[in-house]
């Protein structure tokens, strides 16, 4: 099934729309967090989402795997589609298996490295030890963590450094073989070297996955994103090829934000 998926993505070519959002409004209580958002995300691209605090970028991201609905005060209107299928018509478990997420702080579970990586697959019914070992190696290699931890997979994951923990989280998400990966400010707590490693793995991952990267660090978007969207006060101000956003933005507000005049 996994191979099929890869093939079909390639066959349809680079311009295939992976995610489409139409007239999406999100409220938390009475506060409007996202205001009539329309955008498309192509398969195998990295879409960078930048914007100051309260710009709605995280609400947008958490809508794509429907984590928003855990909030009691959450309300929405509009639609979001994954492969032309309305995500609200999918079971949340099915959707979240296809759309993985990396959180701002490395959220390793208090168990061994191996148990962290295999957590998803085990819960999804894979019990075969060899299969799990293979998945672990594959997932850890994809996040460039394998060489650092291959001899101590049984060690407690919380003993790893922050950067290693975040890459472990990436491996854990990869292990359930998603199609889309959402990064929610994944490097906000990391040092520059760890950040570079995470970015390197993102660039490698886009060959197989579609990536949405929310970041407070505009330079990070400039480094890794194919296209970049600028959000402000719950509205999408501008979305375009990254180099255009950073060199010749259409909107004055985008320019001001990128140049650090506010934010």
């Amino acid at each position, binding site marked *: 099934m996994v191979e099929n998926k890869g093939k079909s993505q390639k066959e349809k070519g680079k311009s295939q729309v992976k995610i489409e959002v139409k007239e999406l409004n999100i409220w938390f209580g009475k506060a409007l967090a996202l205001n009539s958002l329309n955008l498309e995300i192509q398969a195998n691209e990295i879409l960078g989402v930048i914007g100051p605090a309260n710009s709605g970028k995280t609400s947008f991201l958490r809508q794509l795997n429907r984590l928003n609905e855990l909030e009691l005060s959450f309300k929405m209107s509009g639609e979001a589609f994954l492969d032309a299928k309305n995500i609200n018509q999918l079971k*949340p478990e*099915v959707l979240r298996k296809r759309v993985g997420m990396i959180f701002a702080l490395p*959220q390793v579970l208090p168990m061994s490295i191996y148990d962290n990586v295999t*957590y998803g697959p085990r*819960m*999804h019914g894979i019990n075969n030890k060899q299969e799990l070992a293979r998945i672990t190696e594959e997932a850890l290699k994809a996040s460039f963590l394998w060489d650092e931890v291959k001899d101590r997979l049984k060690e*407690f994951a919380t003993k790893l450094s922050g950067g290693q923990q975040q890459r472990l989280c990436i491996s*854990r998400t990869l292990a359930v073989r998603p199609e889309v990966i959402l990064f929610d400010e994944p490097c906000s707590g990391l040092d520059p070297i760890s950040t570079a490693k995470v970015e390197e793995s993102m660039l490698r991952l886009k060959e197989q996955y579609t990536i949405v990267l929310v970041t407070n660090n505009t330079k990070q978007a400039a480094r890794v994103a194919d296209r970049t969207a600028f959000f402000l006060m719950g509205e999408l101000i501008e979305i375009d090829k990254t180099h255009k956003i950073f060199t010749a933005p259409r909107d004055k507000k985008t320019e001001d934000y990128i140049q650090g005049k506010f934010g």
Partner: protein
Amino acid sequence: MKTTTKQKIAFSMLFLCTIIVILPVLFVLGVIIKNGAKGISWNFLTTMPSDGMRQGGIYPAIVGTLYLVSLSIVFSLPVGVMAAIYLNEYAKDNLLTRLIRLAIVNLAGVSSVVYGLFGLALFVTFMKFGVSILSGALTLAIMNLPVIITASREALASVPYSFREVSLSLGLSRWQTIRHSVLPFAIPGILTGAILSLARAAGETAPILFTVAAFYLPNLPASVFDQAMALPYHLYIISTQIPNISIQTRYATAFVLVGIVFTMNIIAVVLRARLRKKKKW
């Protein structure tokens, strides 16, 4: 007055109050050990009472208390933990759940003799279990439910919210998430609460007074529908109802009761410390 002097006075006051807290405990323990320790023997712990309970041991009371305590936890732990999971993980914040929460807090404050009368009305009379171990254990279980629910909810709430998000984001169902990413990390707190509630159940007299406790039984209970003797009630009887019983027997009985309760509390503390060390985040 100098700042340092004021500080010294404040510290002394605080220290004194702390001492006042532990003094009664030490005093009670001291008196019980001094007067009761000599009465403890293998014979005392393992033989039936004789001569109108003036001689012999307290074996049936110990057995009865152990039966009651273990049967009550069989009822109260699953119900309490599951109710706590529902309230903490699933329930929406509406009028009903707020009422339930309020009810639980209030139940914890109801005096134990009220539970005893409730057990008499519901289990003994209405459900026709009679005065039996079953009725007593159920009454104790209900008395302990608020304690177990509150402790379990606190334990569940102390598991970081991010564990749930991580687990859900990997495509697990809510139940899988609770079962594998929340409950394992809440177990130390839940167990501690359960053991502490057991210790309370072991020591209470009022709830078992009308529901199970027997003045004297020549034989051990054969089934859960039999009456049983129990330590706290036995202690009450030999202290107030039976003349010419030696002080030492009374204190030795108290020693055993306090010993059981203390042992359980210590187990709870040690267990919590050990499990905490294992599950660190």
